[in-house]
């Protein structure tokens, strides 16, 4: 009987006759998981885990393993294309990279001259380790307008953390917290930032107490010591209620608040507005449960809050985050070993410096779309999407004529899809870089074939806050595909940025690593580097905020004219704020619960992943379904004042009878007519993007809390 050892690369090679094993780091979500790439005769045959990886320890997810199905997919874009028919006609012609880049550069130079650089919109979707390269290009071009997911995903965590405590606090899983409160995050399924699900799974298995705040039951919630099934959109009220209780019961860290918090007394006064009985009414949670959770979190020696995107896609986005930071701080867990740590990166050039934000002139920065309305977002170079659509459609405050989207599919992922589509149709010129044709790419003039993570050298996770940088190594070349950074390296030279780019992008990687005294070839041999881990740095250095303290009372928000203390605001569209709507739209709609195989709009054309999840589904409580005559697996219509879509009903007892949970980002790559059925099940046909529905500081759209109706689809209707 042989001895078994997992992830045994040597034996894999021996048995299957692979020619080569390349160590790398996946980027099917944000990145982070170490892998072994097995190659034979020039082709990747298998993706396995790398047990030496400090983030995931060799564990993988469906997306990572299925990466080869993107790389070698028959529909993969493999050379640049130019559109030869009307927008959306699907008529394309193959062109060379030179022609594609020359055309884009000529348009950029032209619009910049005629309308100013601000008339050019750069865009990316969720973070794919390309952020700082795109910002670098935009800042050098002189446009302050980079449209990302940053207004409603991770950007708020960065922005609110920086103004409140100087950097993002990350749960210190490596030191085994005694308690983890998972808030609006299902990181064992989702595409989390920094640590992946394995870290939490191991912590919980080793005995960390678990509190889960989620309107939907997940396995994490089911397994938790306490599951707080709150009314969607009431997170800030819950967090302020917990703070109220922790203060009343004197469960907070008195030394910490006395010496390291700015505005403690004002905060104590503010939380008096949130007594537990009132919070219970707002959140639908029993008073005892709120108290029990607050006590469990506060009394744990070490505790962390694993926060996720769900709390950011609401009108209370910034205050949700800030109240959670207050909870971390007041319980003494901020920057504490086993608590929530402000990890320091290695001494490489950081994402902000590489992004060349300082090279954007003050004059151009002042033109950032929505910068005067959403002032927290504007300060962090983030724009609210509606500001971009308005500039295209109404030419106010100035016209936007051209866009270049890299790894982004806004037709599916941004609120109010009808408006997004209209705006993209109106753009005079659009370039899109992606792996496949998409509903967004079909509206472009030029489409560029992007490399997957298997086809690039890069410094992975270099913009994340766990302190690690990870080597990503190019394993294959597919067609003429180029990485996002390689294309911008070449485009930059065509729009007058020659001195800021390199012969090839390896020069850029060397530049990032330069302060460490190594180059990329040397880094590749090292696998990963972590910054020095130090705890409780505030005791000697203070927090990196204007007052040097944890600013529960934010001097920055105050300066920008916002309430400096967190407060709860009722969702813009809820049974309480809009009772007059509930006749027609009686249900609260939450959207965007994650499926393991998909990353937003991605992967629906990959057989291994689509097989797991062939259709979009909408979760509905069995009592509600029975009352409405909806059966499991039946196609239903979901409707809001903005539109109507169809998804398949999934009878699900883990959701409140008054709440409906629909999936996001659905399109049908197999439907070649009608631009891949972009309207059919796209939940953003229903979402609202009006300015008054957005977080006033961050510009976050409330894609998770709105009102809807749901009913069986008529026979034969579509």
């Amino acid at each position: 009987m042989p001895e078994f050892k997992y992830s045994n690369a040597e034996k894999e090679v021996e048995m299957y006759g692979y020619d080569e094993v390349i160590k790398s780091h996946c980027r099917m979500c944000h990145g982070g998981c170490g892998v072994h790439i097995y190659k034979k005769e020039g082709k990747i045959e298998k993706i396995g885990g790398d047990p030496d990886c400090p983030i995931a320890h060799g564990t993988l997810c469906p997306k990572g393993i299925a990466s080869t199905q993107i790389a070698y997919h028959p529909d993969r874009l493999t050379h640049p294309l130019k559109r030869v028919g009307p927008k959306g006609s699907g008529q394309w012609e193959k062109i060379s990279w030179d022609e594609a880049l020359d055309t884009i550069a000529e348009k950029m130079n032209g619009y910049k001259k005629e309308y100013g650089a601000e008339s050019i919109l750069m865009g990316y979707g969720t973070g794919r380790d390309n952020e700082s390269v795109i910002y670098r290009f935009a800042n050098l071009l002189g446009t302050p307008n980079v449209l990302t997911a940053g207004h409603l995903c991770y950007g708020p965590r960065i922005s609110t953390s920086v103004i409140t405590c100087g950097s993002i606090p990350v749960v210190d899983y490596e030191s085994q917290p005694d308690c983890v409160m998972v808030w609006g995050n299902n990181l064992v399924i989702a595409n989390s930032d920094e640590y992946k699900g394995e870290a939490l799974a191991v912590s919980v298995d080793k005995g960390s107490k678990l509190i889960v705040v989620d309107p939907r039951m997940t396995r994490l919630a089911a397994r938790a010591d306490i599951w707080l099934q709150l009314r969607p959109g009431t997170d800030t009220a819950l967090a302020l209620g917990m703070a109220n209780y922790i203060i009343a019961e004197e469960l907070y860290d008195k030394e910490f608040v006395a010496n390291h918090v700015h505005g403690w007394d004002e905060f104590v006064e503010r939380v008096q507005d949130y007594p537990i009985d009132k919070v219970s009414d707002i959140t639908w949670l029993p008073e005892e449960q709120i108290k029990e959770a607050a006590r469990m979190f506060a009394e744990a020696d070490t505790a962390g809050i694993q926060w996720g995107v769900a709390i950011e896609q609401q009108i209370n986005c910034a205050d949700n985050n800030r109240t959670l930071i207050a909870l971390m701080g007041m319980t003494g867990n901020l920057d504490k070993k086993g608590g929530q740590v402000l990890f320091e990166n290695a001494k490489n050039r950081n994402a902000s410096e590489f992004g060349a934000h300082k090279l954007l002139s003050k004059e151009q920065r002042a033109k950032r779309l929505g910068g005067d309305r959403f002032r927290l977002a504007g300060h962090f170079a983030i724009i609210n999407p509606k500001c971009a659509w308005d500039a295209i459609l109404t030419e106010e405050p100035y016209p936007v004529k051209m866009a270049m989207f890299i790894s982004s599919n806004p037709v599916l992922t941004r609120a109010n899809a009808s408006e997004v589509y209209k705006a993209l149709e109106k753009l005079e010129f659009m370039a899109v870089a992606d792996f496949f044709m998409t509903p967004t790419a079909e509206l472009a003039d030029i489409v560029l074939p992007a490399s997957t993570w298997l086809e690039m050298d890069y410094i992975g996770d270099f913009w994340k806050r766990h302190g690690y940088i990870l080597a990503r190594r190019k394993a294959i070349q597919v067609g003429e595909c180029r990485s996002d950074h390689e294309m911008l390296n070449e485009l930059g030279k065509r729009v007058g940025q020659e001195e800021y780019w390199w012969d090839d992008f390896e020069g850029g990687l060397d530049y990032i690593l330069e302060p460490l005294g190594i180059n990329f070839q040397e880094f590749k041999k090292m696998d990963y580097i972590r910054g020095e881990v130090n705890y409780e740095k505030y005791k000697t250095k203070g927090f990196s905020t204007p007052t040097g303290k944890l600013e529960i009372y934010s001097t920055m928000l105050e300066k920008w004219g916002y309430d400096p203390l967190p407060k709860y605001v009722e969702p813009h569209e809820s049974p309480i704020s809009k009772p007059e709507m509930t006749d027609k739209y009686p249900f609260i709609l939450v959207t965007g619960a994650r499926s393991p195989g998909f990353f937003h709009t991605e992967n629906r054309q990959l057989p291994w992943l689509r097989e797991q999840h062939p259709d979009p589904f909408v979760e509905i409580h069995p009592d509600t379904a029975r009352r409405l005559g909806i059966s499991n697996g039946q196609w239903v219509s979901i409707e809001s004042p903005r539109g109507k879509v169809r998804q398949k009903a999934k009878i699900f007892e883990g959701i409140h009878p008054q709440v409906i949970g629909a999936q996001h980002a659905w399109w049908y790559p197999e439907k070649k007519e009608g631009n891949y059925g972009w309207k059919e099940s796209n939940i953003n046909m229903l979402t609202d993007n009006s300015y008054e529905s957005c977080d006033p500081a961050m510009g976050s759209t409330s894609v998770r809390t709105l009102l809807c109706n749901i009913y069986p689809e008529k026979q034969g209707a579509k």
Partner: protein
Amino acid sequence: MKQLALIIDHYACYGCLACEVACKQENGADFGVKLIQVGEDGPRQMNGKLDFLFDVNACLHAACEDTPCVYACPDDTISIRDDGIVVMNERTCTGCEACVPECPTDAIRINGNSMITEKCNLCYHRVDEGLMPACADNVCLAHCIYFGDPDEIAAEIAQKRTLLRA
């Protein structure tokens, strides 16, 4: 001889589905055929509370008490090895489906294209070379897939559970 089984600690499973794709990558089963399949159990009332588990379904091999599929097959297509691995030989399967209803865990699939039955063979081609079965090869982020002797695994899982609220 040491007995080999595939055992899932369902309490620890979060339903990430990595095992399904790891199996696809190794064994290349057709679209619609999952030799290991993650199902949902709930949310439903269990022991007086709403609970939600995942139910990972694959052949248990040495942990299957009676291996009724072996005896149900009229063609000796299914055999049990000395190490407890239950192997279905797809080349000799006629697709009579006699084994399908016999399986206590519903782990035998019918391939709609070829009309023969398929099931997990515990990657015996890997096991014989000293490699772990694909799904058990540390892909699972919950570390809930165990391969090896059923008694040893049961002890290991029990030991792990003692860490909770220790």
